């Protein structure tokens, strides 16, 4: 087809690309790429831009495209209103609380991974049993934990009874509800982190461990100075998915509390939906402004990730 040299390899590919006869092939590459870029642009990229755009409008009952029912340009006033809105303050606080406490999934996941990183017969079954909450739908996790926490007939209530105390309504008390929700969210998240760490543990350099053992390193010291540095990549991925998971928390809140009691378990993602689409709100512009705040938080976390990826791709 084309007249290129026999030699292969990545460096070579670069020159293949630059040499004239291969241009048609590259045009073909765009055909391969086209469907993905198209659907992704229409259903992911454009909506992001559009959300940012409508966050500057008062959209109450309006349609951005119809001439009769014009949305009104309000500039930054949606954002200014957010700053004054106590519900927004609660949402931001709770989102940050989710973010911080969700990080417990990392050490917990590492603990589980260390526990099951064995080759003894039957361990594979235990591994699966530890990991599979990760694939259970959040809706079902929410229901499971709602029943689990129920003060009258839940297991937590029963345990409290056994100890002779009045069981608290975990999901009914503004001071406890967020911890109850986050614990439920941590269950699948920890499983996910354990999975990531176990893969990391499988790729450890045996030589380094053996050398360290010869130097009499063991237990905590070995973990701290030899193992953890090698798990840096796994830790980073676990951090990323956990951070994103915390910012995305929505399903559990809808299922378990609907933002209650008295709006004390609202987070940004829930507050946005409530304002923009739920039966309590049709303020799409205001909702979009909340979404933009959440988006910026996410992008802050992501930018670290993108920076790292770019660096490793450049080294490649």
């Amino acid at each position, binding site marked *: 087809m084309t007249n290129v040299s026999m030699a292969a390899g990545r460096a070579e590919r670069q020159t293949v690309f630059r040499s004239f006869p291969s241009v048609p*092939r590259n045009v073909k590459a765009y055909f391969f790429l086209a469907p*993905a870029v198209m659907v992704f642009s229409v259903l992911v990229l454009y909506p992001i831009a559009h*959300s940012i755009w409508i966050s500057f409008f008062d959209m109450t009952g309006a349609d951005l495209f119809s001439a009769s029912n014009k949305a009104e340009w309000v500039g930054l006033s949606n954002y200014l209103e957010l700053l004054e809105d106590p519900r927004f303050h609660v949402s931001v606080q709770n989102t940050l609380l989710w973010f911080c406490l969700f990080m417990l999934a990392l050490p917990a996941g590492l603990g589980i991974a260390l526990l099951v990183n064995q080759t003894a017969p039957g361990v594979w079954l235990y591994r699966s049993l530890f990991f599979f909450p990760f694939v259970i739908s959040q*809706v079902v996790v929410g229901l*499971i934990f709602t029943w689990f926490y129920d003060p009258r007939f839940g297991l937590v209530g029963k345990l409290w009874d056994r100890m002779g105390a009045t069981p608290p309504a975990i999901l009914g008390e503004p001071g406890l509800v967020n911890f109850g929700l986050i614990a439920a969210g941590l269950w699948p998240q920890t499983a996910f982190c354990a999975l*990531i760490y176990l893969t990391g543990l499988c790729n450890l350099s045996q030589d380094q461990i053996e050398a360290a053992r010869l130097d009499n390193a063991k237990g905590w010291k070995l973990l701290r100075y030899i193992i953890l540095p090698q798990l840096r990549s796994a830790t980073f991925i676990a951090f990323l998915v956990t951070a994103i998971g915390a910012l995305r928390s*929505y399903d559990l809140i809808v299922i378990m509390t609907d933002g209650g009691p008295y709006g004390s378990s609202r987070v940004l993602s829930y507050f946005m939906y409530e304002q923009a689409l739920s039966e309590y709100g049709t303020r799409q512009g205001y909702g979009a402004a909340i979404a933009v705040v959440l988006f910026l938080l996410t992008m802050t976390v*992501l930018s670290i990730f993108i920076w790292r990826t*770019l660096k490793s791709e450049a080294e490649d």
Partner: protein
Amino acid sequence: MFPKPIEHAPPVTRYLYNLLLPVCVIVWLLPLLAVFVTSVRSQADITRGNIMGWPSEIQIFQNYGAVLTESDFVSHFLNTINITVPSALLAVCIATLAGYALAIHRIRIGATVFLLFLAGNFVPFQILLVPVRNLALETGLYDTATGLVLFHAAFQTGFCTLLARNFIRELPFELIETARLDGVGERQIFLRIVLPLIKPVLAAMMILVFTFVWNDFFWATSLTQSNDTRPITAAIQSLNGQFVSRHHLVSAASLLAALPPVILFFLMQKHFTAGLTLGASKG
């Protein structure tokens, strides 16, 4: 290996380990076990308030049977399949093509596309919500399976493209180079050479997308409304209404709804892990 293989440990440690492991698993799965025990109870137990103790009789078939016959469970379950399977197929097709282009060809927009797909995976759904919903309403795709399938396929394409690209890049490039010298066309290279070699990653993508879409709740509630299209995750709360104070049946329904991805996970664990870490380990 870290920690040390347990086979080399003294017998006491080994004994403790074998004791510790099941105890940990039971504690870990306690919420789930409690719900399972509830799901096999009799109505009498529920009315009597015996919800956490041992069931007076085990009614596994009666309860799960009742869920399947006395409610809309089955139709919602089928709705979910109707959304999940096409989404997975579509996403995998589109993403494999794109992954091939990004892995084999050095095209100028390659890096940008790669980065956008990478970032797109992680954006909060809320930033897409209003425009996507309005788009669905305008095009008549609101409350249809097609609407959900298109959206899910588009959203999952980013993630799948990363997997496909990373996997195809690991293939020996000489293979493709030789074929090109023999005059094999680009389409044939993709179909005859690359596709057969990447079966494992195709499987990984399929089951991951299947799981993500199956478990989706946000889009299911935002883009559908009627009972004819609502998937099971969005409907399970309304089942709560159909089974008022029949706690055991709601538990059974929830467990059934969660089952397909769990079964897939147990059967295809290797693909699951490979998919999740190949997409991630590159970072």
